[in-house]
């Protein structure tokens, strides 16, 4: 009976979180706005030299996406922690790791997906080749869920703390490095006309690994934060 209802619980939670996000639409745009702002600052800081911007565009977009993803992490568990519904998510017969996965998926749909959609526009701002934009979106598609999944572990560890902000970035950023490296590297290789399948496969395997491995520590960390 528990197994058959697992999918139902997963989708019920997903639906609830999406509904909540929809009723708080204004908050949806904050990470997105941050993403756009950071990318806009770069040309102002480095000078509007087209060649230079083109060369560092993948790095800029990915670093900005990474920071935006990090800033949005707090919303995964914060409100559930504050109103007590997190306790209910832990105290039910279903495996917490699956519920965690539903919450992270909802979070990615709310924050990661919009980043992916707006990134092509920013790529054009920075003068990236149009053929590369598709690849950029693919790397974001494979990479940003990993950011959410890893971030969920860190936020689960810090959700009980009053001021977890800077601590969160310290916990999360070292773990984001591999994703950043392979994603930007893929685009740079493509710029010089080299094949990038290896990088994409690696990003894909990061995603699979993160999906299978991160829910457990996240669930365990949530329990610690509530105790």
């Amino acid at each position, binding site marked *: 009976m528990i197994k058959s*209802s697992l999918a139902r619980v997963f989708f*019920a939670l997903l639906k*609830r979180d999406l*509904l909540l996000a929809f009723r708080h639409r204004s908050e949806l745009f904050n990470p997105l706005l941050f993403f756009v702002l950071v990318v806009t600052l770069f040309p102002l800081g480095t000078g509007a030299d087209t060649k230079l911007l083109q060369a560092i565009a993948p790095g800029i977009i990915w670093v900005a996406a990474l920071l935006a993803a990090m800033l949005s992490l707090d919303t995964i568990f914060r409100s559930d922690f504050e*109103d*007590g519904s997190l*306790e209910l998510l832990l*105290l039910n017969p279903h495996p917490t790791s699956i519920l965690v996965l539903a919450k992270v998926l909802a979070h990615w749909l709310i924050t990661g997906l919009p980043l992916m959609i707006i990134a092509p526009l920013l790529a054009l701002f920075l003068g990236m080749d149009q053929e590369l934009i598709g690849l950029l979106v693919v790397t974001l598609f494979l990479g940003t869920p990993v950011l959410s999944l890893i971030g969920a572990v860190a936020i689960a560890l810090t959700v009980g703390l009053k001021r977890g902000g800077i601590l969160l970035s310290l916990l999360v950023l070292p773990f984001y490095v591999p994703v950043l490296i392979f994603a930007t590297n893929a685009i740079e290789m493509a710029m010089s006309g080299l094949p990038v399948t290896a990088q994409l496969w690696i990003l894909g395997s990061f995603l699979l690994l993160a999906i299978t491995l991160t829910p457990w520590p996240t669930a365990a960390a949530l329990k610690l934060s*509530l*105790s």
Partner: protein
Amino acid sequence: MKYLEVRNLSCVRDDRSLFKALDFDLASGQLLLIEGDNGSGKTSLLRILCGIRLPEQGRVSWHTGAEQLKAEVAVHSNESYAGDMVFLGHLDGNKLDLTVAENLEFSRSLALGNDCSIAQALERVGLKHFEDLQVSNLSAGQRRRLALARVLMSGASLWILDEPFTALDQQGIEMVEQIISGHLQQGGLVIMTSHHRVSFDRTMIISINLSQ
């Protein structure tokens, strides 16, 4: 017959020992009232009993009927225990941006069984016709009632309630007392803390004072 067995339970919080070597059994139809001063570890005890917090020492086991199923709560939350237990904490656990019905529907999808429909549960806690209102529009007492409706609907036999009377008016308190007695009469188990003087049938009550 279901019963909860607690042996040699001790709890340390922030390096301070809250209680030591706590033993008790709670059987079907019994209510455990946990008393004690502020900071004596009532909430921590409840959290240990429901499996969120690990005790410093000791064991909590849940025995269900003929199968003699043992769920070692202290080790990790066990499926059969988690399905048979419902917890109401300090916080109501309601989502303010969802309607009353949406909240209950979600908690129903989390629970295994369910005793009654949403409408019935709402009627019993005195929130009839509030289904489509957003929880943010309810008063604190009404939110507490909604949380109690969730408890009612869960179909669990063991209720763990942390200050269930908070924010309730006199009529609300009486209503909750009735609900709890009803649950006990049906063979349920209740563990609760309360600052209010409760008026239950004394024969069903066990009480523990953590301050002593």
